[in-house]
């Protein structure tokens, strides 16, 4: 089969799976829906592998295959084809997306087993993967926007999956609306591209751009800044990041999907994909890098104090995406994408482990309540520790290699870019600390009630309440239902977590400086035109110095967490009281929600209230009333008030206009 056929099949399977489950929702048994969904994604993964093998068969400079299905809406000078581009970058993304998603589907088959909305869940989940694949395989910017928006829709549907929860539906809306802001950025970027170049196909844009734009010309900077708006909205970077923490309202596998394989990595992909434009607009690239750095540090500090298990992991995602954004913005393209891949492994793993623990806690997510699960759930705790090690960048794990590759590149590029290296290492210390904050509090210590119950062989049950509001849940629409599922008792969950744990531990070995460079050489044909990649080479010595520093940072963070939570428990409480203000600032997430509310949401609503309450009544209705009154006044004069103002007014108008018309007719003849 030709490579483009593989590409189209990658898209076709998840879409078909989604439609099939949706259309057969009455007929399919719950389990069947789950397996169809999983199979669809597994087949998509197989097709991605097919595309990969096809690409590897070709010489390195012929690995870009574009294919068009039909002209979707091209007219009036706007090109709009339904076309895909299969090249090493899109195949790499497709592999990560389908591979990790297939495992998340597998996990969900068991985890969501008792949910009443099981079929709906898998239909949306498949659609989510389809959207993400459309995003990465799209061959032009306009189709990219379509995939981009479909991802937004799928996230809306899944975040508000338990739709009787008000907090969940509000979170879904928030995610969607913020993502629409990003979409608008992309739309204008595409419009500018069409206006300046007349094309949107990647190949054509990148070919024409260097001739059409001089370096740092305002148009190309504007295009890149608009692309960044889209990227930060989707990838949850400051200041458009506030939706991500709320998105934890969705079921845990959805969190895993959003954070690991799909959605938030889209911004990273977009910048990497558009690198020829960013090369022409270094200012915009620097802006993106600083946004990434800021988010990296901000989210890491918030993760230090948040107590909701899933939200800690959510903030760590923001922080890690910050690393990737920094990477692809400063020119470390393959390093940034490498981190995207390893992060997908360990983040999915962390969420799966967290989901298993939350199930054991009967849907309680507060880590203050959790303790000592190591004997009750050895497998889950093992997975959690592996995920935390990789996240912390413990020497030898996948996160260690990928993170250090970005930071070593920043240091080698030198100059201003040292800031990113230094900031990245500080972030690494924080990351190691909060990852092991989870581990030491959840895994170790005196077992909590639920853990003890589980050790006795009984899974805790409680009436499900919304952790955010304390409202009793309506289990009619599904999970959190009466049954919980933990990895210890469900083999699909175990298999999924084991595979990811393997990736999280050993995934870094494909890129050991001076030894292996599998990913780099595969992606090289995509990025070979980049002037930055051509001039900045990280020497093996520098790479190892960087790795030494990174390893130290990681050990420092883990050590600090060990001291505070294991050696001297209770000292964190003292710290919190000592730095109450700082703690509140971090705990309230730097008040970004309040800021956005005050700057955007409330003014808009106030305008709406004013329009609805005052303007409409006074001005719009006033026109009618004024007209009526005016005629009324006239009416009294001619003593025909009893005939009704409005009717008289109409009559007057008719008569007047008829006269005018007659005048013209007469004047003409």
């Amino acid at each position, binding site marked *: 089969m030709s490579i483009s056929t593989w590409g189209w099949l990658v898209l076709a399977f998840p879409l078909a799976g989604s439609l099939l489950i949706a259309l057969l929702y009455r007929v399919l048994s719950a389990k069947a829906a789950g397996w169809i969904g999983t199979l669809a994604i597994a087949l998509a993964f197989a097709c991605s592998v097919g595309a990969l093998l096809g690409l590897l068969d070709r010489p390195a400079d012929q690995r870009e295959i574009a294919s068009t299905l039909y002209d979707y809406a091209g007219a009036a000078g706007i090109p709009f084809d339904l076309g895909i581009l299969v090249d090493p970058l899109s195949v790499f993304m497709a592999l990560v997306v389908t591979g990790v998603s297939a495992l998340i589907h597998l996990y969900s088959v068991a985890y969501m087993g008792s949910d009443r909305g099981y079929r709906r869940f898998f239909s949306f989940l498949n659609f989510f993967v389809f959207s993400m694949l459309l995003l990465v395989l799209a061959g032009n910017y306009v189709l990219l926007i379509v995939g981009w928006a479909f991802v937004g829709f799928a996230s809306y549907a899944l975040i508000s999956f338990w739709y009787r929860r008000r907090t969940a539906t509000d979170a879904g809306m928030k995610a969607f609306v913020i993502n629409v802001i990003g979409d608008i950025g992309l739309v204008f970027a595409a419009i500018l591209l069409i206006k300046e170049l007349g094309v949107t196909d990647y190949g054509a844009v990148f070919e024409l751009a260097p001739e059409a734009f001089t370096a740092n010309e305002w148009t190309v900077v504007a295009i890149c800044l608009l692309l960044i708006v889209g990227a930060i909205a989707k990838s949850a970077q400051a200041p458009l990041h506030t939706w991500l923490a709320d998105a934890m309202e969705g079921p845990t596998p959805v969190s895993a999907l959003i954070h690991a394989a799909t959605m938030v990595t889209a911004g990273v992909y977009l910048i990497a994909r558009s690198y020829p434009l960013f090369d022409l607009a270094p200012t915009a690239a620097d802006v993106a890098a600083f946004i990434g750095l800021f988010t990296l540090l901000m989210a890491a500090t918030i993760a230090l104090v948040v107590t909701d298990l899933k939200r800690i992991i959510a903030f760590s995602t923001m922080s890690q995406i910050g690393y990737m954004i920094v990477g692809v913005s400063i020119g470390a393209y393959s390093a940034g994408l490498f981190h995207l891949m390893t992060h997908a492994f360990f983040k999915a793993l962390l969420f799966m482990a967290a989901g298993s623990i939350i199930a054991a806690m009967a849907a309680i997510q507060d880590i203050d309540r959790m303790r000592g699960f190591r004997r009750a759930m050895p497998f889950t705790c093992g997975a959690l520790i592996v995920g935390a090690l990789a996240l912390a960048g413990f020497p030898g794990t996948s996160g260690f290699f990928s993170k250090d590759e970005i930071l070593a590149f920043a240091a080698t590029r030198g100059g201003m870019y040292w800031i990113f290296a230094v900031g990245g290492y500080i972030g690494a210390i924080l990351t190691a600390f909060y990852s092991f904050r989870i581990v030491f509090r959840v895994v170790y210590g005196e077992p909590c009630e639920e853990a003890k119950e589980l050790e006795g062989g009984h899974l805790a049950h409680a009436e499900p309440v919304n952790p955010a509001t304390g409202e009793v849940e309506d289990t009619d629409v599904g999970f959190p239902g009466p049954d919980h599922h933990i990895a210890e008792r469900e083999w699909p969950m175990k298999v999924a977590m084991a595979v990811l744990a393997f990736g999280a531990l050993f995934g870094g070995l494909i890129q050991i400086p001076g030894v292996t460079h599998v990913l780099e050489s595969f992606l090289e044909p995509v990025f070979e035109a980049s002037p930055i990649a051509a001039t900045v080479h990280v020497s093996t010595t520098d790479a190892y110095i960087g790795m030494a520093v990174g390893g130290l940072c990681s050990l420092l963070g883990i050590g600090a967490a060990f001291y505070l939570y294991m050696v001297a428990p209770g000292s964190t409480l003292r710290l919190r009281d000592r730095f109450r203000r700082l703690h509140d600032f971090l705990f309230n997430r730097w008040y970004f929600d309040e800021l956005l509310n005050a700057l955007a949401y409330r003014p808009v609503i106030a305008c709406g209230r004013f329009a609805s309450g005052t303007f409409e009544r006074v001005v719009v209705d006033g026109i009618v009333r004024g007209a009526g009154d005016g005629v009324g006044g006239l009416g009294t004069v001619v003593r025909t008030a009893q005939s009704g103002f409005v*009717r008289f007014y109409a009559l007057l108008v008719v008569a007047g*206009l008829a006269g005018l018309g007659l005048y013209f007719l007469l*004047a003409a003849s």
Partner: protein
Amino acid sequence: MLVAIFAIPVAVGLIGFLLPARIVGWWATLGALASLALAVVLVAGFDATGGVLRDVVDESWIPQLGVRFQLGVDGLSVFLVLLTSLLWAAAVLWSALQAPDRPRNYFFMLGLAQTATLGCFLAQDLLLFVLCFDLMLVPLYFLVGAWGTGDRIRATIKMIVYTLVGSLLMLVGAIATAVLSADATGGITFSLEVLRRFPLADGTQYWIFCFFAAAFLVKMPAVVVHGWVVDAYRSCPLPVLILLGGVLSKVAAYGFLRIVIPVFPDASIHFQELLLIIGLASILYGSAMAFTRTGLRDIVAFSSIAQMGFITLGIFSLSGAGGDGSVLQMVNHALVVAPIFLIIALLAERTGTEDIRAMGGMAKRAPVLAALFIVVTMALLAIPGSANFVGELFILKGVFETKVAIALIASSGIAFAAFYALRMYQRTMHNPLPEGADSRELTLREGVVLVPLVACIVALALYPGLITTRGQDSVDRSLASLCEDPYGIAGEPAAVVEADCPPGIEPEPAPEAVAGRGGFDAWTGYGPAAAAGVAP
């Protein structure tokens, strides 16, 4: 062909008076489906190349006044004709299922309204257009006044007064146009093809433009002349509301493209910024209102104002992309509004209210309804991947090339739309189910009307190029009038200054007939000396 499409609805309505009341609804449905079938045939055989008029019908009608019965379709109108027939079929079918009081009168009024509306889209004679435009009001007056709900008398009068003032202004404008250009054309004629070749003097164009714009903006409606729309929407019986919100508002937008821009090109350029600002104000104001209102009909009414604002922007960007996007967006918006109104009817039936504060949780027992509604909601907020997105993309591109700032501000309307559309969905389908609400699935009778409409949205989302490719030549042809002196002074095929044309628009080549300047006779009747650009 066109005469049949034009006449069948009213003929069916008339014959309905002879039939027993019981079956008149089904008879009307049959008639509406027949006219839909004809419209489908029309679209299927339509050739859009060159953007010229097709299937032209041209009969002498009132020779003393130079009024002719001229019908024709081009890329601007062909899909609107199909849309009209489609929505009428839906509305008639829905009505037939509801069995209204006094069915003979009711279905006759519906038929009359359809004929009038189709007349507007097909007319190529200015006076015929104006008459059809005014004729639309008559059945509407009775339908809202007699079959409406709530404070229907007040609503009817408000609607009639508002739109009648506009209509009469337009009548004056139309007569004035014909009379004032009589010297140039060689006699009084209302033929649009002729009038557009002999533009009036600037000053005259300006005030006539204002008359036409007033009529169209009221009908659309645009801020601040939308005062009638909320009351009318609240009182209108639902099947009629589909037509009022879906089709009748499009007549106004269509009028700008068909009449105002080609016949009053200088005024269109002169007032471009004003109209853009009105469109922008409609977007912002409509969105702000749609945010805060709690009645479903109010929300849809104001969202329509916002969407019509986008269409106004597209048209008055005076660019090929903007105009083409507007043509697409007219169809899109109608296809979205119609199912929404049906869904509102279903929800009102189940919860006993149209206030979103007292609704919620419908999705649980009605997954099919929820799925259909989410498709419609996504189309309403113009998610990329829907045809509505393509329309907005084209419009924004058109505006962006003319006025960057307006495009940027208008784009906030997209984010607002996401908010109010999702708010509407969330508050009705999600969240806890209120006490006393009866959550149940779509019935077959309801599905028969709703599902095909949603299927149309999906089909168009898969291939919006169907409309954009067929619309663009006709849009370009309308805009070609804007080129400075497109046909040469006094008929001489003079040098055309291309630089004055809107971006991407090329001036239309002066037709051969102009060379000899045959006067009036050469221009009427599409006879032997037929004007180029009119393919019989």
